[in-house]
């Protein structure tokens, strides 16, 4: 069994002449082409031999046996195919006749491929534009790009989109190149079978490196995020969690937990989730609902049932604190409730912004590299919310 050697193809698949001269150069070094993959060619190690290679585009995806036989009779042996591209080889000493003696006739063999690549390019371009639109809508539609960036849920999709843009670019390139080749042939100029391949080889290697880096960038954080994200039911006591608890705000011994939605053993109305991203390695979110059975809402809508919702971020880049707060306000402003966002000086916080409308209260705060957003619905005073928040934010502000 011959040893198999894999090599990165020097340039894009549609560069026929460069591949032909590359295969010949490899054969002269004793590497004989066996198979061609998407990015790598497989060679069998053997004796160095002077070989001529020709790549012939077939009208159909699979080349007919009649065509192979006809070529073989003239001294051209079929080696392998990739897509519509078929590789034939002949020892130099055999002096086999050139496959194509009439460039204009050869241009007809590219007609189908040309059409296919053109349709392809259009479809990919449209799909890419749609995808770009979708991704940029998520980033910018509600004007909170910092929040999207920090939560890190869109990073992979965005990198993927960049990759798809690159794919669209190459399929456009393929269509243009084959069209150009078709026209060149039609003018009677033949393919340059000795086209130098080394220049593109370096570029291809660089692109392959970028490709691998992108892959690592997409895959590695995904696994970390998966491993560092979870949702759990809130314990009754959670002194070590940077979450504002309903009990701390209400200060009412009659308060009991109200569970309305339990699935997968998690009480979703009384839960906390944690999450990780590169820019915010500590992230928490919590929901908590309670009920005080001997107390009624003043508007008579039923038994008093306060709730609190917390969002917590510890940033790895503290300078992003301000724009994160402004994005949080933008996304969770609940403008329909009216009321003002009031900036208050407070010794426990770097920033404290309060929004209060009747029993609806929310605070946006930061301290050091920590940012919190607490939304409370109930009769407790806003100062109680601020006090609890001040206590909790010290857990992660350093």
């Amino acid at each position: 069994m011959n040893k198999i050697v894999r090599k990165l193809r020097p340039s894009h698949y549609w560069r026929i002449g460069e591949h032909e001269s590359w295969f010949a150069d490899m054969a002269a070094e004793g590497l004989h082409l066996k198979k061609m993959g998407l990015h790598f060619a497989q060679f069998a190690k053997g004796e160095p031999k002077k070989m001529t290679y020709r790549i012939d585009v077939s009208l159909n995806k699979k080349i007919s046996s009649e065509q192979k036989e006809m070529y073989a009779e003239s001294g051209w042996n079929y080696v392998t195919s990739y897509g519509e591209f078929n590789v034939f080889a002949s020892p130099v000493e055999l002096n086999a006749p050139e496959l194509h003696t009439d460039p204009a006739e050869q241009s007809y063999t590219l007609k189908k491929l040309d059409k296919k690549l053109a349709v392809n390019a259009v479809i990919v371009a449209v799909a890419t534009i749609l995808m770009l639109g979708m991704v940029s809508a998520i980033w910018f539609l509600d004007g909170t790009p910092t929040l999207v960036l920090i939560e890190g849920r869109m990073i992979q999709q965005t990198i993927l989109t960049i990759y798809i843009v690159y794919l669209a670019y190459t399929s456009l390139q393929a269509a243009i190149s084959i069209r150009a080749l078709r026209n060149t042939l039609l003018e009677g100029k033949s393919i340059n079978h000795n086209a130098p391949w080394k220049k593109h080889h370096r570029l291809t290697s660089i692109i392959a490196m970028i490709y691998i880096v992108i892959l690592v960038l997409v895959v590695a954080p995904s696994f970390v995020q998966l491993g560092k994200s979870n949702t759990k039911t809130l314990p009754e006591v959670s002194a070590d969690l940077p979450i504002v608890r309903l009990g701390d705000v209400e200060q009412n011994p009659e308060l009991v937990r109200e569970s309305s939605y339990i699935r997968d053993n998690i009480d979703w109305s009384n839960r906390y989730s944690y999450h990780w991203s590169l820019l915010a390695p500590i992230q928490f979110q919590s929901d908590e609902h309670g009920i005080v059975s001997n107390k009624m809402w003043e508007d008579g809508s039923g038994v008093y049932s306060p709730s609190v919702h917390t969002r917590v971020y510890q940033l790895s880049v503290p300078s992003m604190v301000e724009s994160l707060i402004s994005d949080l306000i933008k996304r969770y402003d609940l403008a329909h409730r009216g009321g003002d966002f009031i900036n208050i000086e407070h010794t426990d916080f770097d920033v404290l912004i309060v929004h209060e409308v009747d029993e609806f209260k929310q605070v946006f705060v930061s301290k050091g590299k920590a940012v919190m957003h607490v939304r409370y619905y109930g009769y407790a005073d806003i100062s109680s919310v601020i006090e609890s928040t001040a206590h909790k934010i010290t857990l992660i502000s350093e």
Partner: protein
Amino acid sequence: MSYNGGPMTEAMYYVLLALMNPNHGYQLMNAITEVSNGRLNMGPGTLYGVLSRMQKDGLISLAEDDGRRKTYSITDDGERALRIEYSRLMALVQDGMILKEGYENE
């Protein structure tokens, strides 16, 4: 690029000419060299392309197909097209006669 009665490519013309006698693959290449008095050595790629296109256009047809070897022959349409092309080429050459006279006058 179906044939619409316009000028033929050189490759088409000679393949049709060679197929006045049914023939196949490799031998056909030799027949073309012969019928062109050694002027045209057609490569197998060009030949295969011309054959498959002209078959689609109905200028030639499969006379025999034993699975391994396909023998082609010219159709009536093909022969008609070939004769029209021949007359056209004759007319072209005729028109070019003035070049010859001009040369002789010198």
